[in-house]
Structures are given as C-alpha cells and as structure tokens.
C-alpha cells in the first residue's frame, strides 16, 4: 500500500522562491530556513475530493449572479487542467476570484477609488469534466493600483485555486492577459525566475471559444505536478 507513486517536484526555477525584496509583503512572511524535503506518503498522495453534486453548474457564470449584467467586457475563460504528462485532471474543483471591470474587488480591504458594480461579485467555481476541461464566463478584470512601491499597478488578472488529485498537487495561481503592458513591471508576475514559466501564466486569445457578437475567448491551461513513474523508494 505504501508503494503508491508520489508526485514529481518542480523543475528548479519554475516555481517562485518565498523571499522577493521587490515584493514588500514577502519580507516579514517568507520563511528563512530551508524547506525540509518530505517524501510523499499516503498523507500527501491523497487529498480532498469534492462531489460533483456539490457544484452548482451556474457558478461558472460570473455575469449572471445578480439581477442585471455587470459592466465591462464579457469574456470566456476556458482551458484544461492536466498533469505534466498531459493526462486530464478529471472532476477537480477550481475556484476563481477577481476585480470588476473597474479594477475594484468586492472586499472591505480594497480601498481603491473605483466603483463597485452591484451586478458583479467576482467569485466563481467549477469542476473539470472528464477531459479536464473547465469554462468560466466573466468580465475582463481591470488593472488597479497597489501600495507595493511608487506608482505600482497590478496587471489585469484572475485568481485560480485548484485542488488536483492530492494534497501534493494543490495550486493557487493567477492568470494574466496577452499584451498587458504592466507585466514587465509587476513584482508578483516576475517572482518566478524562469521566463517560460512566467509566460505560461498568460492566457491566449482564442477564436474557438469566442462567441460571435457576445464575448471574446481566452484559453488558459493549468498543469499540475505529474506522477512519479516508479514506486517511491524508502529514503
């Protein structure tokens, strides 16, 4: 039973380090001690499983949660959740949150002087299908200023939370938009050393999912750690 394969670790440089002097909030919160390598056991190979019945199929449409339609540009964000071998991650829960089209979050901490939209909460969730596919309907989030440094602005982004099949595969990330001029200046986007890894956080404009006369489509695939090929060795 204990010879279930574990999950692969990140390729060096493709995941951010904890301490980033350019990202001020990391200074007092980033661990200073090296991480202790933990071989995967049943505790890490398992993880929470959510029943498909627990997912409201309408929760993936962020434009229909109120009496009216939210302001802004309607978009479709879709893609697949796969592992590093391209195998679909089936029936896994995704949670998303974002600012409204004006760059304002519906959150008490957000003091940005941009209007709230009574027709937009910025919260959605969905479960992948058997091919690992998901699809959200939303509005394009606005860019917004933040206090990290003088004249700091976050590029437009959507937050994604994904469980995957195991405790070891848990991921929270952010999706960006192609051509955003703020990306080169954003300390959060730039925290990952590997340029190709950063660029994989940028969605791609997609004709196939674009709905004529209604909404532009953006494609964003999410890749979770792959499985070790052979059973774990006792280290």
């Amino acid at each position, binding site marked *: *039973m*204990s010879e*279930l394969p574990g999950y692969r670790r*990140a*390729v060096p440089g*493709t*995941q*951010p*380090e904890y301490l*980033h002097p350019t990202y001020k909030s990391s200074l*007092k*919160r*980033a*661990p200073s*001690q090296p991480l*202790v*390598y*933990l*071989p*995967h*056991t*049943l*505790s*890490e*190979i*398992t993880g*929470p*499983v959510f029943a498909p019945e627990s997912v409201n199929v309408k929760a993936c449409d962020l434009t229909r949660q109120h009496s009216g339609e939210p302001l802004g540009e309607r978009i479709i964000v879709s893609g697949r959740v*796969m*592992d*590093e*071998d*391209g195998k679909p991650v089936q029936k896994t829960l995704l949670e998303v*949150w974002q600012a409204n089209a004006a760059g304002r*979050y519906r*959150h008490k901490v*957000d003091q940005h002087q941009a209007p709230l939209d009574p027709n937009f909460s910025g*919260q959605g969730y969905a479960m992948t299908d058997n091919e690992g596919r998901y699809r959200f309907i939303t509005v394009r989030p606005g860019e917004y200023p933040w206090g990290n440094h003088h004249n700091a602005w976050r590029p437009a982004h959507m*937050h994604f939370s994904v469980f995957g099949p195991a*405790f*070891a595969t*848990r*991921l*929270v*990330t*952010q999706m960006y938009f192609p051509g955003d001029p703020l990306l080169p200046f954003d300390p*959060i986007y730039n*925290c*990952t050393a*590997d340029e190709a890894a*950063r660029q*994989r956080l940028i969605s791609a404009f997609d004709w196939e999912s674009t709905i004529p006369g209604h909404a532009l489509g953006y494609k964003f695939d*999410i*890749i*979770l750690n*792959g499985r070790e090929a052979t059973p*774990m*060795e*006792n*280290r």
Partner: protein
Amino acid sequence: MTLRATTSQTVGPFFSIGLDRLNCAELVGPGVAGERVTIEGRVLDADGVGVPDAIIELWQANSYGKYAHPEDPQDKPVEIGFQGYGRIPTDEDGKFRFTTIKPGAVPGPGPDGKLQAPHIAVSVFMRGLMRRVVTRIYFPDEPGNAADFALGLVEAGRRGTLIARKTPGMDGLLKWDVIMRGPGETVFFDC
C-alpha cells in the same frame, strides 16, 4: 509529452471572495468516531505580529487512520460525516481555531509501510507568500512521535514547532502557532 507544472502565485489580500464558500472549522459531522480536539493558534510574521490575511487548509485521516480518498488502499472504514478537509481564514489578530478528531496512524513511505504518528497535513496561504507553505500538526504525549519518519527528518531543536501543546486544565484544547520567519520559525516541508 512533458509539460511543466503551472507556477504558483500569491492568494493576495482578497482571497475571501473566492475561497470563503468552503470555509470549514468544524470538521466533524454526526456519528463520527474518535477523540475530539480543538486546535487554536496564531499565524505570526517575523515581528511576532499576527497575520490577518492568511488561510489555513487541513487534510487528515479519520480516527481509524483512513483517508476519504480513492487511492487509500487500506481496509479501514470511511465515515460519511468526516471528509478530513478543513479551511480556516485567520482573524484580524492572526488567530485561527478548528475542531476535529485526532487522526489515526497512517502508513509511512517505503515498502514496509511503517506507521506514521498521527498528524494533520497543513497548507498555509497568505498575501506575501508566492506559494503555500506546507507543514504538519502532531499531537503531544504521542508515543509514535519518537519514531515518526517525518519528525525524524527535522533537526531535534525544531521538531517542537510541529507538535501541538496541551492547555493546562483544558482537556481537548491544543495550541499550535505558525511562525513564518525568525526565532522559533515553524518547520516547513518541501512537498
């Protein structure tokens, strides 16, 4: 085909919008076997100041040492009222509190499958952290702790950060803090 795992990014300060729906600080449903425990503590930054915008996720076996997951091959009962998952945001002082049952022992790594001491797997996310930190909660006065393989990976002087403390005169109430950086820093795992 070899793809590369997607890069982690911080949850930022506004995660409650997306994550509140699954908040769960009471992990135990009706009819679940085992010893109930409440665990409380604080998430603290390098200055010892509470982190008001952190969120903790828990994953644990039930009191039989069985995970509610299809890959747990053990012939032990799964309980309908116990999923083993919890999610608790910290309050304005960095405090968190949850109630669960003490998990049973689960197999460790390697072909011998020697049991691990009872533990809860923990992820902590917060503004300022580009990816989660992973740690574990172990239980005080647990004979299995001395031989636990994961505790054995940690230098002796830091193991205590992974073991919850009893509260004098309060049975069933344990204390466990997460110290992000500096003196007493909690042990975090590469998971």
